[in-house]
């Protein structure tokens, strides 16, 4: 009886392992990291409040900027197509140079530009632009929201001080599941 039970347990464990393998092999079906991140960037527009003076006119578009290498490709464009934020049409702009960056409500800084984060942040200071990056320890460097991968899930690390300094209010809902990071080190 005990032998039979052990055999059954082994068989069950085997089946579970097979299932896990099959699931991980299904990479083509499950969204890629960048895909998820593209949606997340778009979603930030819902959970962050920008100061009222952000827009010069009501028809001014809500701009999501991508600085550096674009990891999302067309996915972000697809995600924002036809979307509006408080009457402002959503547009995606890609920047390769810092000077190009202006009037941008969300700026995604690719990890390829991790080195120039300080520079960028300095340039954006006081402009009310939500900065987002997947570069490691970006939050510690003053990036407001940093993507990080944890147990193959994308988690957020948020530097509330930076956001507050930029005059942005991040919804507490966003803050709750996220990791809050203080400038210069982990909390």
């Amino acid at each position, binding site marked *: 009886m005990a032998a039979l039970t052990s055999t059954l347990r082994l068989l069950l464990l085997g089946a579970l392992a097979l299932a896990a393998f099959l699931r991980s092999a299904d990479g083509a079906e499950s969204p890629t990291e960048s895909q998820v991140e593209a949606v997340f960037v778009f979603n930030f527009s819902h*959970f962050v409040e920008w100061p009222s003076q952000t827009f010069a006119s009501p028809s001014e578009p809500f701009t999501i900027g991508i600085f550096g290498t674009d990891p999302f490709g067309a996915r972000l464009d697809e995600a924002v197509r036809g979307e*509006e934020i408080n009457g402002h049409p959503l547009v995606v702009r890609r920047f390769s140079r810092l000077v190009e960056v202006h009037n941008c409500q969300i700026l995604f800084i690719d990890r390829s530009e991790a080195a120039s984060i300080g520079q960028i942040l300095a340039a954006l200071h006081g402009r009310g632009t939500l900065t987002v990056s997947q570069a490691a320890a970006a939050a510690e460097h003053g990036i407001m929201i940093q993507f990080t991968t944890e147990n193959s*899930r994308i988690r957020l690390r948020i530097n509330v001080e930076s956001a507050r300094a930029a005059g942005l209010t991040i919804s507490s809902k966003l803050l709750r599941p996220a990791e809050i990071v203080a400038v210069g080190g982990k909390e």
Partner: protein
Amino acid sequence: MSSSSTPIRRTLMRMIFLSSGAVLAVTTLAFCTYEFLTFRQSSVQQLQILSRAIASNSTASLAFDNPEDAVGVLTAFKADPHIIAAALYDADGKVFATYPQGLAASRFPARPGTGYSFTRAGLTGFQPVAEGSERLGMLFVESDLNAMYARFGLYGLIVLLVSGLSLSLAFLISRKLQYRLLQPILALADTTRAVSERHDYTVRASRTGAYEFDLFTDTFNQMLTQIQRSEGNLHAQLGRLGLLQHITRATGERQDLASIFRVVLGTLEENLPIDFGCFLLHDAAAQSLTVSALGNTGRDFGGRLGLAELLEVPIDQNGLSRCIAGQLVYEPDALQVAFPFPQRLAKAGLRSVVFAPLIVENQVFGILVCARCAENAYSSGECEFLKQLSEHVALASHQGRLYGALQQAYDDLRQSQHTVMQQERLRALGQMASGIAHDINNAISPVSLYTESLLEREPNLSERTRSYLTTIQRAIEDVARTVARMREFYREREAQLTLERVEINRAVRQVVELTRPRWSDLPQQRGLMVDLQTELKDPLPDIMGAEHEIRDALTNLIFNAVDAMPAGGRLSVRTRGTLDANGADRVMIEVSDTGVGMDEDTRRRCLEPFYTTKGERGTGLGLAMVYGMIQRHSAELEIESAAGQGTTVRLSFPAHTSSVVSTDCAARPAMTNRRLRILLVDDDPLLIKSLQDTLQEDGHLITVTAGGQAGIDAFTAAQREDSFDIVITDLGMPHVDGRKVASSVKALSPATPVVLLTGWGQRLIAENDTPSHVDKVLAKPPRLHELRAALAELVS
């Protein structure tokens, strides 16, 4: 009466309970419905609020694909124990997180739906999860209904408590109010029941002072008073009606006025009642009222009033005179009436008086007086009653009178019939007596003739012989007269009665002597003793009468007296002179015995012919003959008798006052001295022989023929040579009677006198019926002196 069983109280209670229960039920139902609906709504709202909050908190988890966080958010449902299941779907409809964690897939829908709805198990809802305009997913929530059930359980408890409390309160309040409301009704109902069950109209409902009920009570009481009064009147009326009927029946059974009055007064005194009652009879001609009857108590008052039966009462100007005019008069207070009769009543203590007239054929023949001691004591109903009563009494007395008259007429008729029958019998008897008389007269004729002849002609008769012969002669005469009277005694008056002076004492002595065998000898044979005493007043005036009739009457009276004393006794015969009312002399004969006497009925009927108390021994003619004699003599008869007290009979004759001498002595005619040839015609040989003997002794030449035809032949034969001077013929003869003989004689020789001798002679004489051709009629038995007188008269 127990109030708990009163239907109205129960009904009222039931009504109150039903209405308050219904109100309570509707209120409770409305409340519960409202609570149910609002609770549902609020449940939905509550669930919605909770779901919205959770959904709102779940946005980030969904937006940033954080199931762990989502699970954490869903855990907040713990706060509400009724949330039994929840599931979060992502925008693609895939389940993102569940509550509780690891919830079986069967407990939530595979795909999200929309809206909130109640299912059998509970309340389910789908809440969209959105951030701003971004739709991020859907939240499914399911709540059980235990809260609602618990709530409704609580409500049920509250409803029960409230209902119980309100109904108890309603009961207490309604009881209190009902008492106030029902008390007068129940009191009225009690009274009504008392009235209807016991017919007691004296009870009254009491006022309670509640609402309009006093009006009811007063009206009801007034009604009761009226009913009571009506009932009282009705009772009185019925009582009087009964009384009237009673009196009417009682008077109907009576015919005489006195008895009717007595029963009316007696009943009135006892039953109406009255204190005094009397009847006054009105004599219209004399204008007077007579007290006819007094009631029993009336007699007591009558003494005080000075009223007694047969007393006259004057007709007053008021009261009685109005009543006499036919009005019922009611004096409520006799004291106030100034007239004597009411005053007299008032003084006797009778204050209220009713005078009711008794009217028959528009004539007031009497007054009914009813009085009571109290004033104003008669109600109008009683007056009306007395009026009706007086009419009934008047009618009854009228009928009584009519009945009396009818009875009298009937009695008269019966008497007449009786008399006629009696006369018929007597007439038949008389006819028979005539025949007998004729024969007896014939038979005694020789005795009479020979006796008279002997007394007259025989020279050497001893005193004794002469005495005997005289007695024989008197007896014969009595026989002849008796016989002659036999058929006539029933006649009221005999015109031919020859009255002569009669010396009563002599007649009495003769009768006493003649009847001695009857009152002395016969009783002595039976060992009895009748002591006969005579008290004869002397001198006594003579009377005019027929002595033999008087003797017969006395004989009858003595016989009756002796018969009335079967055990012996004393018999008195008295005579005396008396004076009548006009002072004229009368002679009284009194025959008195100490015998059995007569009762009232016998005394009344004793004079009737054929009425006898002696059975077969009596003829019933004795006293009738006495009475006939009395009538013929214009005398008076008085009979005094009572059962066991003996009898006294008095005969009273008018005395003869003139001193005419007796005709007997004066009229004796002289006898003829001539020798006559006499033809005697008779069919009786004894008679003819005696006639022949006596007339031959007178010196006449007698030719005798037997029968009428022989007589005629003899007369015819004699006509040729030696005719007869006179023919004496008998009347009644076979074949050829006396009349025929007489006519034949007259035809041959009209001058020859014919004397007819007849047994019916006296009757012929009485009727002055002398047949034609007859010169003289002589009765049998022929007396010698009469014959001589006739011969002398006819032949001279």
